[in-house]
């Protein structure tokens, strides 16, 4: 006996429950029709998984199209990283610093830190670990420079030798 002939016989046909007598139509409306109509609307409004909040960049246009960047930004960054690290090529088009300059949030001046921030919101949505910023600064150069004097002051205090 072959399986091919078996399958149609064993197939189960699912069907919607049809209204019977008495309470029938009212109950059917409440249990089947209302949820079926309402659920797609609910899913779009507040689904179980919140959609990433993407804040528009500060520049006019990204270095490549949005579709391309969504799929390939990691390849561009990795290529640039090796070029810069090993060859000293410091073109700015695909540099991580370039991304940060443009995509740092207007609220906290960073690309990570809250679920509203550009890098973090998408990465947590996609459940992809984001470890660039364990070493790299997550803020643009200007704001990093503002933070610098505090550190230099600390250095002088610890070594106990004042700068001339």
């Amino acid at each position: 006996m072959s399986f091919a002939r078996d399958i149609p016989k064993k197939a189960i046909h699912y069907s919607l429950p049809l209204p019977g007598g008495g309470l029938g139509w009212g109950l059917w409306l409440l249990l089947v029709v209302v949820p079926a109509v309402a659920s797609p609307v609910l899913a779009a409004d507040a689904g179980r998984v919140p959609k990433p909040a993407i804040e528009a960049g500060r520049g006019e246009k990204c270095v490549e199209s949005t579709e391309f960047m969504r799929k390939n930004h990691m390849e561009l960054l990795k290529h640039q990283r090796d070029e810069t690290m090993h060859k000293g090529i410091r073109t700015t088009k695909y540099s991580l610093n370039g991304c940060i300059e443009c995509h740092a949030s207007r609220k906290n001046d960073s690309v990570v830190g809250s679920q509203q921030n550009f890098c973090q919101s998408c990465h947590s949505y996609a459940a992809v670990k984001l470890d660039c910023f364990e070493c790299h600064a997550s803020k643009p150069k200007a704001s990093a420079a503002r933070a610098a004097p505090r550190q230099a002051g600390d250095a002088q205090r610890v070594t106990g030798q004042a700068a001339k």
Partner: protein
Amino acid sequence: MNETDRSPDQPEAMSRRQFIGWGAAAVAGLAIAPGVTLFDLAHGRPAAEAASDKVRWGMLIDTNLCGTGCNDCVTACSRENHLSGGLKPTDSQWIRKMELKDLRSGKTHSLPMLCQHCEHPPCVDVCPTGASFKRADGIVLVDRHICIGCRYCMMACPYKARSFVHEEVTGQNPDVPRGKGTVESCTLCVHRIDRDRTPACVEACAAAGRNAMIFGDLNDPRSEISKRIATYTTTQVRADLALNTAVRYQGI
């Protein structure tokens, strides 16, 4: 990429660079004597061009000019690279001041000690992952994307030049990434060199009016550093190891 795309390498920037190039050439035309110029013009490398092995960056430190008690180079390094500047065993030290004393005469003098950027670096020899490497222009670096933090390089280095990052780092300089679990050391301020600037320590030493540190191309016989090395007796620390260091000292 189409015409309207916003690119940071804009034609305006190029024309400005070109203009500066012509200006520099004009200054070179006014040079004092053949082969002697006020400025070292040889190293304007464009951002898109890879570092070349025609250049070997080096440093000459005149310990007679280095001030005992002066810590400016160390402070400048900490500021530039966002190091804590602390002296705990777990704090990173990319450059440190050493005091030397002649026991017979009691004469003391001091010098800064940093990564010597060897031609044959032992740290590169021992690295199991290839993270420790020497760039074409002689700068010895750690690729922390590859570093696993095993610290073999720290044991191999005869100059104790490398540090391990023990704790999480925040507020880095965007040009100088640093992170927990990796080894780091003096980069000769590679991010500044690539933009035609001198290392922060050298700049600070000059700003303090000491000029004990000079930076330049060891391969270029016309550079200030090469001329000094050709004129005066200079020393490589632990020359017996035949590592051919790029950092040389005068007066020790």
